[in-house]
């Protein structure tokens, strides 16, 4: 028996990145804008998607992938709004991975314009996994406190937009909106920041405008 050293140099997320690239290629070539929504549990990902549906459905073709550890509850909320939803239950895993996307992607209609991927509620692990999305949004509700961008930098560093949610509650809280915006921009100067309330509808029109603009960009890139 002899001992030897073998050089490998393989990325541990290499297989995830390969699958994600294939998913992105497929979706973008069809003109589907995929948005990966990440946040803590309970910060309002499903409520934001419901609000977007109210504005964009049925003029635009929407689809939603719901990631949760257990239950079909979120997919049922989306279907109740008349939009097709696919539930991925991870059975314990704290994040979605590209291979889970690959399993459902074949069922997403080719004419879909906007595909929302609601990640498992967790501000840490989802940030490490590319799902093949075109856009990554991080949500932060005002009840969570201002310190989250500094405490969970990777989610903010890898996202294009920060959607602050539940701003109808601001008058009840000591939440410094400007501080959050400033600190999030320190971590990621390219982050676009929108403040919203799914309850009152405030700020939702800016979210819709962002989505429409981003899809136009995607279409012109692939024209």
């Amino acid at each position, binding site marked *: 028996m002899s001992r030897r050293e073998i*050089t490998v140099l393989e990325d541990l997320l290499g297989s995830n990145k390969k699958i994600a690239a294939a998913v992105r290629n497929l979706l973008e070539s069809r003109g589907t804008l995929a948005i990966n929504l990440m946040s803590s549990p309970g910060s309002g990902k499903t409520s934001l998607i419901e609000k977007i549906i109210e504005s964009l459905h049925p003029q635009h073709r929407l689809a939603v992938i719901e990631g949760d550890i257990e239950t079909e509850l979120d997919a049922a909320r989306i279907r109740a709004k008349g939009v097709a939803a696919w539930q991925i239950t991870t059975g314990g*895993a704290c994040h979605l991975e590209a291979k889970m996307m690959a399993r459902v992607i074949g069922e997403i209609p080719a004419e879909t314009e906007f595909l929302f991927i609601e990640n498992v509620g967790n501000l840490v692990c989802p940030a490490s996994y590319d799902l093949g999305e075109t856009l990554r949004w991080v949500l932060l509700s005002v009840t969570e406190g201002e310190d989250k961008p500094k405490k969970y930098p*990777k989610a903010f560093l890898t996202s294009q937009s920060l959607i602050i949610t539940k701003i109808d509650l601001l008058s009840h809280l000591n939440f410094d909106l400007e501080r959050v915006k400033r600190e999030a921009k320190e971590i990621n100067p390219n982050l676009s920041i929108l403040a919203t309330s799914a309850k009152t509808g405030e700020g939702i029109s800016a979210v819709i405008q962002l989505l429409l603009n981003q899809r136009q960009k995607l279409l012109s890139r692939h024209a």
Partner: protein
Amino acid sequence: MHELSLVVNLFELLETKAKEEKIKRITLVRLRCGVFSGVVPECFQTAFDIYKKETIASEAELILDIVPVRFQCRHCGQEASQDDLPLLCPRCGSGNVTILDGTELTLVSLEAEV
């Protein structure tokens, strides 16, 4: 806590390599782990020690070489290294930077009995 998922990926790579190279036993596994990889080294070590039992690497030692973050300023082109956020250019103070290094989690090499 996604370190266990990553360890599962690691063992898939190790098993593929073991077949290719006709390895009997893996004795050491060396990884490069970026400060911004999202991995907590202690959690990764624990997950590795749990998972390695009854595998080809059951007695293997794990070495994680920690890689600092290296970035380049998009404003003035300066390159710099840093371990914490926010990333700011030491020359012009701009926060508009491209990360060059320090997000990776790479299986670099292994030592084995063949």
